[in-house]
């Protein structure tokens, strides 16, 4: 494929897919180790009431209020989950289940009560996103990457997810040591002065921001898959957290690129006519990578379980 074709049609969706995958996979590593991986699922559901409330308040479908509404709902959900988990002393999965089903249901009711004829919130969009449609029509080839005029025409999702990714990377880098220590041994972490409650909250809020930014561009399927599959697969490749993070990023990139390419061309290679959903294929690829890691990964055997005494 020539640059004239690739840059306007495929470069931006590919980059958005890759950035979204990495932004979710990075915090996903800690969430999986803390047995909070379901938080991605929770966040992508609670986004609905947030979007509806944002619409009710502004009366218009515009990106920023909806993003803010979604992020606000995610933060509320995260606080509720933590509160229920700590006050009720139940496992995090149960607390998440209670919160996200209730908030999602409230979102559905709220949506019903509003004038739905003017609201266009369809389920398909929420699930698959619109990755393929995030094209860059102002681009004419590779030279456009340096052309300010053409860059103005970039789909707004790209700078948004890129900025989110930078934020996620900064958070992970800056709080690497406390994150690692408190994930492994929360009690010890507190005795050395790490504020584990605040840090845990910051982690899920970071994940929530990544989820909302990714959700906007690529739909909830990728969000849920990227929080879990690359980190879980990476865990089976190594016994060191540093290496695990690197593997999870590699797996996220492979899933995004191979998923996007296969969705666009796979059906044609197989003699079919239409392309399939890129988001669906990216999520499928991440699941496939997880399956391969589970079958062949060098560290898939959990030695710790055998040491009961």
């Amino acid at each position: 494929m020539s640059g004239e074709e690739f840059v306007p049609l495929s470069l931006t969706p590919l980059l958005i897919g890759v950035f979204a995958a990495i932004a979710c996979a990075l915090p996903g590593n800690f969430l999986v180790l803390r047995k909070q991986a379901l938080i991605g699922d929770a966040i992508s559901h609670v986004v609905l009431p947030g979007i509806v409330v944002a619409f009710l308040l502004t009366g218009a479908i515009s990106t920023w209020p909806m993003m803010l509404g979604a992020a606000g709902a995610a933060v509320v959900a995260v606080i509720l989950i933590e509160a229920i988990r700590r006050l009720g002393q139940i496992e995090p999965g149960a607390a998440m289940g209670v919160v996200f089903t209730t908030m999602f249901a409230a979102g559905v009711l709220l949506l019903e009560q509003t004038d739905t004829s003017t609201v266009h919130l369809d389920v398909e969009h929420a699930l698959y996103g619109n990755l393929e449609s995030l094209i860059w029509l102002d681009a004419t080839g590779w030279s456009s990457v340096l052309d300010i005029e053409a860059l103005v025409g970039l789909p707004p999702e790209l700078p948004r997810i890129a900025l989110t990714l930078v934020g996620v990377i900064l958070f992970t880098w800056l709080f690497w040591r406390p994150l690692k220590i408190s994930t492994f041994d929360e009690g010890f972490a507190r005795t050395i002065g790490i504020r584990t409650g605040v840090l845990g909250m910051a982690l899920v809020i970071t994940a929530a921001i990544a989820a909302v930014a990714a959700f906007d561009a690529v739909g909830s399927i990728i969000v849920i898959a990227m929080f879990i599959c690359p980190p879980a697969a990476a865990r089976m490749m190594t016994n060191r957290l540093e290496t695990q993070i690197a593997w999870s990023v590699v797996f996220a990139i492979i899933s995004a690129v191979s998923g996007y390419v296969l969705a666009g061309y796979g059906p044609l290679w197989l003699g079919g006519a239409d392309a399939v959903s890129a988001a669906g294929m990216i999520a499928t690829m991440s699941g496939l990578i997880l399956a391969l890691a589970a079958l062949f990964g060098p560290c898939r055997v959990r030695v710790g379980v055998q040491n009961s005494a």
Partner: protein
Amino acid sequence: MLELAAVQGVSIEDQSVAGSPLAIRGLTVSYGQKPAVFSVDMTVQPGAMTAIIGPNGAGKSTLLKAALGIVSPLSGQVTVFGKPLGEQRARIAYVPQRASVDWDFPTRVIDVVLMGLSRQLGLLGRVRARHKAGAMDCLHRVGMRDFADRQIGQLSGGQQQRVFLARALAQDADLYLLDEPFAGVDAATEKAIIAVLKSLRESGKTVVVVHHDLATVTDYFDHVFLINTRKVAEGPVAEAFTAETLQSAYGGRLATAQIDQISRALG
């Protein structure tokens, strides 16, 4: 000293607070309806080895966790070397119960020991050769030097406990608090741990251990603190570790506990 005590609201007469590595006053902790620890006073003696003993569910671990700020008490105050806990974190090392963490965590033995240096390293400080050498030295003291590069899940229970102790040694503290370090470990590990703790005492450090094995109390410790939600007794082993205090701490459970312990002590 007097001024300091006054600032913290501790009564000026109570000079033992200022001189104690760990002084607890009126501590009450509750998980739900029933208090786990009720109105407990404790004054740890400097340079001594103190055992916290009591029946299961008596609040031993909770007392330790509240003293460290891991759980928040309903009331009470904790003073570490005469100052509030928050100012003295660098002088405290803590060994949690081994079962409280997931040993499947992707990290190596040496990395766990290096966690003990994290206050020193700060947020972004690099681990340098001298830090590594220090951590290796701590591993050597617990007989685990050869295991530095192992994944922690590959260790036996006793080895895991020694790694936790090595991490506490790396903290280079003045007060060591250990929660059930002898639970489920092999005899060699128990010997290694007690040797390290005694060497800490020799160098003037204070050691407090939540302990469950009544048979070894007189061998290992100078002081005991008996608890059953409330404080039962506190003092030198010869005074506070008696049939009466045990009876009042363990109640009806003592009979079985004692038979068990004595038969074990006789081998």
